[in-house]
């Protein structure tokens, strides 16, 4: 049998081997992903599934989990008919509406004001982000004493400057709600500011210059050029604040303990009280599941309506 003439250039090379059915190299990316996957499973999914599992039991701290009674959907049935849950959910939604609306407005406005290189801008920026660096427990303590009816600076200056009688800020339902909203705005407006200013500074200057040449005034540049171009950043900031509103509880726990009544009791604080004050861990878990569902639903809705990844032209 005659052999085909061999190309002299390839004659020296080893014969190509048949392609193996399994190439070990293809597992490499998975090997790199596995640790992260395990951390995700352990740190994220396990607690979620555990909360779901516990929500079917009647369990109190101090008793072994094995001794907990399986009660099926009882906790969920109780939750849906429990007026306290709906009351604190309403408080949470009102709190979220006021804080996020004002924080987004103020944060964006401040970012637009300090976007240009003006004298002292870096000092202002540093001052504005200071509240972000303070732990929530310290924030709660600071504002609790500022609002204190006896020794608080707020009552003192309202009296000294405007002759206003001392107010029981944290002992009146409306005033206490106002106080926690104000505290949240103080702490979290800088978060919006820092994200938005980063977005504004990353905008291509040609686009802004082009709009100037086309005759756009300052307002038009903001509303028709800049804000639409950082829409994806605004959506992410909104989403993160929204999730925080549903998660946060430390400041309210320190400032008001959720009172007077339930006027400042957010859903997460209510879960904490259920779990640790009244020892109803199963019921608290059921409300936690509700919290997860609400946050998931709102997040999905926002991302569906304004998906930052959808428009590639966004910054």
């Amino acid at each position, binding site marked *: 049998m005659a052999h085909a003439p061999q190309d002299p250039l390839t004659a020296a090379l080893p014969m190509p081997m048949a392609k193996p059915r399994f190439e070990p190299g293809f597992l490499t990316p998975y090997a790199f992903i596995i640790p992260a996957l395990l951390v995700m499973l352990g740190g994220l999914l396990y607690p979620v599934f555990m909360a779901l599992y516990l929500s079917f039991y009647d369990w109190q701290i*101090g008793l072994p989990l094995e001794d907990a009674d399986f009660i099926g959907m009882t906790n969920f049935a109780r939750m849906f008919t429990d007026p306290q849950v709906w009351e604190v959910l309403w408080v949470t939604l009102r709190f979220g509406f006021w804080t996020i609306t004002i924080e987004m407005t103020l944060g964006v406005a401040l970012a637009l004001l300090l976007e240009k290189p003006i004298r002292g801008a870096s000092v202002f920026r540093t001052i504005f982000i200071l509240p972000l660096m303070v732990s929530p427990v310290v924030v709660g303590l600071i504002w609790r004493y500022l609002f204190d009816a006896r020794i608080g600076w707020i009552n003192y200056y309202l009296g000294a400057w405007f002759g206003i009688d001392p107010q029981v800020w*944290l*002992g*009146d339902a409306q005033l206490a709600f106002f106080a926690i909203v104000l505290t949240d705005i103080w702490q979290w407006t800088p978060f919006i500011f820092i994200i938005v200013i980063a977005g504004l500074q990353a905008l291509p200057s040609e686009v802004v210059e082009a709009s100037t040449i086309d005759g756009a005034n300052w307002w038009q540049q903001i509303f028709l050029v800049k804000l639409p171009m950082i829409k994806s950043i605004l959506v992410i900031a909104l989403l993160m604040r929204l999730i925080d509103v549903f998660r946060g509880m430390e400041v309210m726990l320190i400032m*008001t*303990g959720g009172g007077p009544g339930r006027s400042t009791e957010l859903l997460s604080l209510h879960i904490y009280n259920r779990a640790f*004050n009244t020892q109803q861990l199963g019921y608290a878990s059921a409300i936690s599941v509700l919290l997860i569902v609400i946050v998931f639903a709102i997040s999905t809705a926002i991302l569906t309506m304004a998906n930052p990844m959808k428009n590639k032209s966004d910054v």
Partner: protein
Amino acid sequence: MKHLFKTGLAAASAMVLSTGLAFAGPYDKYAGTTIVVSWPALSHFKAAETLIEEFTAETGIEVEVDALQYLNLRDRQLLEMSKPRGDYDVVSWVVMWKGEYVSKGLLTPLSQFFTSGSLVDPNYDIDDIADAYLQNGGVVGGKKGYMPGKSGALYGIPFGAETSILAYRKDILEEQGIDVPGTYDELRAAMAKLKEAGIPAMTSRGATGHQVTAAWLFHLAPLGGKIFDDQWNPVVNSPEAVEAAEVLREIAKTGPVGIPAFGFGEAAASFLQGESAMYLDTLKIAAMVRDPAQSKVDGKVGYATHPVGSRCGSETGGFAMGIPANSQNKEAAFLFLQYMTNKAGDQRMVELGGDPVRMSTLAANADKFEDFPVVLEQLPCADADWRPLIPEWNELNIDVLGQALTEVITTDKPIQPIMDAANEKARAIMQREGYYVWRN
């Protein structure tokens, strides 16, 4: 010869050892042991740290203290005591938690130590401890589950226990021509008169939850009210209970600004800083008045027994100490408990600025402190059953009464419907927890 020598040596060693054991002190066996104590970060317990040092020097038993804000103790203690091997050897609880701890099997009955000849100090004299304190803080069982009785047992010794007395500003009452109130009618009249004179009358706790409920309970017992009748039916809407809520509303209206946000610290601070004329709460106020770091009113304060309504009935509360069931050093823990609460320890606590639990200590120091004779007079009518120390109490206390009473002091709504609604909620909780399953 060699065998004889060995035998002689062994016999001599045994004799020396047995003699040594026979004469060993009660603490020798436990010297070098370290016990961990969980208790609140409050002034009485801070003062006790010096006594702990003396305990260690005398016994060789080391003590580590884990001090926490008192309302946060329960979570930590429950978690520790529910582990197979806990870190705590001694826990100090607010008396209202004892029922829950015992029902979950987390505490060791103290009878096993009090029956041990090698552990119990023959001069301990437990009968000298104020009855109301011992029953309220340490005994679990009886007909109600939290009081003495044939099924009761001792789980804790009071330490940092208290009853309520009235503290008042002598200078202000004298200036306004007001006699020290001895009854609730006189108290209400005094508050109204002080309000008219523009002086904040009486400070009080009032923050939502435990604090406002505690404030109301101070008035409930002397006005003849109860939380439950004998069949566990809630009666927080009874005329007496409504009257107690009316008194609380009057206190909030005539007292210093901010009562609806006051916890224990804020209420006391208002009196100590000279912003209120009266204080009706724990006897601990007296030690605070004497402390120049906290008080601007030392020398101006007088003390009187808790005003009487339809009956005499001051609170019993504060703390008791016991030994977790999962402690690894129970005997050393008992020796600690005994040392801190024996007659010498109780006297030492007084010298260190703490509060005694023994009648003999109160009597021995009655001429040194203005409040001690008042406490001695008050204790016989201190009501160990002024609140139900059942496991469900925490939920009733915080979730039901703590909400309803906030509405009482922060609004002008009629009180009866508020308390009626609270009563229904309380009944639902008791129903849920199975208190009525034995009824037909």
